[in-house]
């Protein structure tokens, strides 16, 4: 007999049990966020961006915040931005919110097939778009409309894309909001999750290969971190020290599943950086200043050939997942209101007012102007046509499969008579 089972036969052992994570609260229950750590604003040290990774393995477990509960900017991460910049950020965020509310209704009115909002998460795209260079490239998710708005992407082009009408810049080929806007540093979106995260690394490697100065930024949601692409992106980014900022937008939910199903029951997403020996920052995603500061830190690292940074933005998906979703089916109705990090627009507004650089009146007026601008753009888009009433020429269905069409496409065009 071989000396197996030294530790006792199976018979003595207690039965195993399968653990299935469950969120703290379901509909009808009181919202709770005690599984999350929220460090006080200003409490996390800001190491030099050139710091070696072993020195900062605590950072993924803290929460970098600049704006405190009174709207003051505090601590070492305060990026010291001027009021002009902040007002611009505020406007971009407010515009995103107004636009999305409007288009959500348009979808409900049957003007398009589908829509998604970024409510509560507007600070992320806005601050990062403003902070980075024009020729850097963002590999977006569907929740970073504010990136485009911060770069003055024409609202009418958004509307036309969403309506898939004759002026749709994507020629009727894409689901609403899956924009592509090369000139605005906004890579082609697609419905499948995760796959562009690793492409961003390749893009950044190409910039480094050429000896250029452009860096890349990429997003995934908390849920999407579980895809293999996430790991591949981090691995390649770390191995080749790619100049890329890899961001996890942890909005607590992935459609109906909470962040614990994605692996955050007992740890943070920022901590995933440690696996790869790169810095991981955990940042208040509803704090425009903290987002900016963390991005600037990571960008400096990238631009000085120190390689990639992983940033987790802690935020909350205040709206439903999409127009196809009803979040009251799986989480407390008032969970958004209970979210401890508040609303990014309110927080920046409060800060500006506290600085004497903004007022409730100016805010109201700004919102009215933004609403008017959006209304005008939507009207213009409706004039061209909503989904089904207007579309690009059907020949566009057959273009761009390849650079040059092959006989199949030519024959099939003939068959359809277009």
């Amino acid at each position: 007999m071989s000396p197996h089972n030294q530790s006792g036969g199976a018979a003595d052992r207690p039965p195993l049990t399968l653990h299935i994570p469950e969120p703290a609260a379901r509909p009808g229950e009181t919202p709770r966020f005690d599984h999350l750590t929220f460090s006080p604003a200003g409490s996390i040290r800001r190491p030099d961006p050139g710091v070696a990774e072993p020195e900062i393995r605590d950072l993924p477990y803290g929460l970098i915040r600049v704006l405190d509960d009174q709207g003051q900017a505090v601590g070492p991460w305060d990026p010291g931005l001027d009021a002009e910049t902040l007002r611009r950020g505020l406007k971009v965020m407010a515009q995103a919110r107004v636009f999305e509310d409007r288009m959500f209704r348009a979808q409900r009115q049957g003007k398009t097939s589908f829509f998604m909002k970024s409510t509560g998460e507007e600070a992320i795209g806005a601050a990062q778009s403003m902070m980075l260079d024009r020729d850097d490239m963002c590999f977006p998710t569907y929740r970073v409309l504010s990136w485009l708005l911060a770069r003055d992407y024409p609202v009418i082009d958004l509307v036309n894309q969403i309506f898939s009408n004759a002026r749709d810049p994507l020629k009727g080929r894409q689901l609403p909001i899956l924009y592509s806007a090369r000139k605005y540093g906004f890579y082609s979106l697609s419905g499948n999750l995760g796959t562009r995260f690793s492409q961003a690394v390749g893009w950044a490697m190409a910039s480094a290969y050429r000896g250029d100065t452009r860096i890349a930024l990429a997003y995934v949601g908390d849920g999407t971190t579980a895809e293999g692409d996430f790991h591949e992106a981090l691995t390649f980014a770390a191995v080749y020290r790619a100049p890329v900022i890899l961001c996890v937008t942890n909005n607590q939910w992935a459609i109906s599943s909470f962040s614990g199903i994605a692996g955050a029951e007992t740890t943070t997403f920022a901590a995933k950086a440690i696996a790869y020996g790169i810095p991981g920052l955990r940042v208040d995603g509803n704090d425009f200043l903290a987002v900016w500061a963390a991005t600037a830190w990571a960008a400096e690292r990238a631009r000085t050939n120190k390689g990639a940074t992983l940033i987790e933005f802690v935020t909350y998906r205040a709206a439903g997942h999409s127009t196809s979703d009803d979040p009251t089916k799986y989480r407390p109705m008032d969970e958004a209101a209970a979210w401890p990090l508040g609303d990014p627009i309110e927080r920046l507004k409060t800060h500006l007012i506290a600085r004497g650089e903004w007022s409730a009146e100016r805010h109201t007026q700004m919102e009215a102007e933004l609403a008017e601008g959006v209304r005008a753009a939507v009207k213009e888009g409706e004039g061209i046509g909503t989904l089904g009433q207007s579309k690009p020429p059907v020949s566009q269905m057959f273009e761009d499969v390849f650079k040059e069409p092959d006989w199949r496409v030519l024959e099939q065009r003939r068959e359809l008579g277009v």
Partner: protein
Amino acid sequence: MPKMDMIQALNSALDVKMSQDPDVVVFGEDVGYFGGVFRVTDGLQRKHGLKRCFDTPISEGGIIATAIGMGAYGLRPVPEIQFADYILPAFDQLVSEAARLRYRSGGEFWAPITVRSPYGGGIFGGQTHSQSPEAIFAHVTGLKTVIPSNPYDAKGLLIAAIEDDDPVIFLEPKRIYNGPFDGHHDRALKTWAEAPGSDVPEGHYTVPLGKAAVVREGREATVLAYGTMVHVAKSGIEESGVDAELIDLRSIVPLDIDTIVASVKKTGRCVILHEASRFGGFGGELSALVQERCFYHLKSPIGRVAGWDTPYPHAFEWDYFPGPSRLAAALKRVMED
């Protein structure tokens, strides 16, 4: 007998099997508490418990790998992939692992998994919520691929798939979840209650894998279809005025070659209809098989009606979708030739 739509029938199949067999376990993205984005797993967690119907990370590769491991242990996992477009991250697990496990291990291990996934177009889902990937599965030795076209079949086939000891890709035509869409997108959608195939027994029954159904008998031509296209074919045949026999393949692997060949030998003409893009699609295999076995009976070239060889385009849904008129035209063509 109760009336069920496709979703209810599929839900009932899962419920029946979970009630009968403690080894049946259901999981996938949003399938647990929420009951699935198409509601197919609605109520199963509440009824059968957290561990028997649960949410997974967004990781299709991980979902299928986990299912294979569970299957090798002895369970009968029924993972859901939220959209068939998102099976691709798990393609390697399906092809290199699930499909090959029995063979390569000399029969020691196998993966009795049933991968459910909504597929197909017609819902303005754009490029990544509309695709029909059945051809790439059909080519994989060791995988079975099943596609129901009505609630009765959906339940019976799903139960048969779960009870099958081989890996089954179970593609659910999402366009007909709620009613038998016949391709006339400008008309009101019929409900299942008014349509054949919606009388669904509450309890256990199976529809065997590998048996096609002759949905409509005809003398002049044979139409081969599956999923949503069965309904499109019905209305296309009507529009054409051709007395065509309509065969619902129900499973493409195993394929009911006998029923196909018998029909084409009788009619002498054949049109194949599928949503997937045409080039390299499953229609090619069907055409080749029919041609090989019925060559001397064929009166005209076998026709194929399919999606165009482009990605699935949002605004051009109805230009892309192979609707009844395109089938009717093809039927007329095979009659003229």
